[in-house]
């Protein structure tokens, strides 16, 4: 059993010491002690009320907490599974690129290894062009879709030069978020109490490269062909 197991007991003892100490002080009853404490406590309550008043006017980013389970979508199923990527909700497509290519030259594709899946679809509806689309599903932390705050920061970097398509991951970012949340007794009787199970969900990041069937592809990195 670690020291942490005794922490509640130590905290309790500390509390007893503080409360007992303050109450003992009150027993001294130096002159006008009652008035003195009343004045200090009213000052404290005033401070709390002023803070509550100011907090009404400070700017907030209002976000509605949602159940990740309700927006449960596995993007990969639309690319590697039995469904078609065109059926994906359009809001999940975050960015699109188009580059002109020559069918005489092979297309080199340099893609990163990591969290983003890269798919390639050979199609007949593109002439001397490649079409690239980036899809991102919501990423939930504590019931908040954090993608709305960082979406552009996590877009892949796509460049095309000299018949080489280079896909790079963006530079890793670190962000702090500050939220104001309801207390436990408030959550107990609100909808939030039902969200705990579905509050976390990792988002999926997928890049789709659509290229004409007559272009020779030379991939360097992990890519998956659709319908092949």
């Amino acid at each position, binding site marked *: 059993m670690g020291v942490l197991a005794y922490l509640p007991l130590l905290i309790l003892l500390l509390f007893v010491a503080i409360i007992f100490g303050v109450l003992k002080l009150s027993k001294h009853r130096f002159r006008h002690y009652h008035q003195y404490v009343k004045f200090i406590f009213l000052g404290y309550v005033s401070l709390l009320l002023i803070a509550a008043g100011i907090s009404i006017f400070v700017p907030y980013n209002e976000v509605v907490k949602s159940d990740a389970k309700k927006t449960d979508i596995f993007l990969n199923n639309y690319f590697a599974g039995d469904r078609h990527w065109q059926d994906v909700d359009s809001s999940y497509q975050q960015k699109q690129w188009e580059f002109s290519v020559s069918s005489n030259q092979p297309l080199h594709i340099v893609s990163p290894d990591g969290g983003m899946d890269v798919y390639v679809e050979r199609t007949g509806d593109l002439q001397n062009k490649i079409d690239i689309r980036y899809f991102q599903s919501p990423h939930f932390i504590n019931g908040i879709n954090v993608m709305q705050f960082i979406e552009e920061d996590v877009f892949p970097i796509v460049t095309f030069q000299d018949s080489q398509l280079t896909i790079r991951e963006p530079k890793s970012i670190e962000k702090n978020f500050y939220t104001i*949340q309801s207390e436990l007794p408030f959550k107990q009787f609100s909808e939030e109490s039902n969200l705990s199970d579905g509050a976390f969900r990792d988002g999926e990041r997928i890049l789709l490269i659509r290229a004409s069937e007559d272009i020779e592809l030379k991939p360097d990195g992990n890519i998956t062909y659709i319908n092949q």
Partner: protein
Amino acid sequence: MMSFNNISLSSIVWKQYQYKQKSYVGMYMSLMVLQLIAILISIEGTLYTGETTDVFTLNMHHYSADVAFFFTVIWGGISATLLTTKGYWVENFMFVTNRLSNHLANIMLLTTVSIVGGITALLTKYVNVVMHYMLRDEPIIQISTLESSELIAGVLAMILYILFACAIGYVYGIILQWNRFIAIVIPVLLVGLNFGLGYIGLYATMYDFYLQETSFLLFIIKVLVTITGLFGLAIVLSNRKEELK
């Protein structure tokens, strides 16, 4: 010389309550000290969630009054226990009083401090919010504003939890005065069962019974019945004590 004035129980209780409000003013001071500690602890947020992926690291800090609420609940329990200690008990005999009026005045006092404690605990969150804007540039994310009915239910629940802790502390204090051996055995058993035997159904049942109750009406009934039972037990037990002991 004997007095033939008829004094009603309610007027005695009210006078005692007023006296206790002034005499035990230190309770408010200790409440303030603990809530200020809670505010300091919560400067970086009450809770913290971190997550790292290939492309981002997100640190989510949550401001809420949970720490202040938790401290206030413990404060309520300890203060109620201290109310039953000999020093405070003897002071009651400065009045025309009996045990029942003293208990009723104490219950009124504990109800008052629970209301004050609950409301002030809730307000501590806003001190952290204002401090955030004084120290940082990032805006705060406000999540799901509560309906007014949820707000009222939450405030009442907060107050009831504190009063619940007060009732437990009060009955424990009375047991402590009545029989010190039993008073020592109870926490040893509770802590020992938790640490020594590991999981036991009692804690889980208690947790489900009170904290997992999502119907506010049922919660009020459960807590009020328990509080009444605890204060009733305290009154019954103290009747078995000798006077001034």
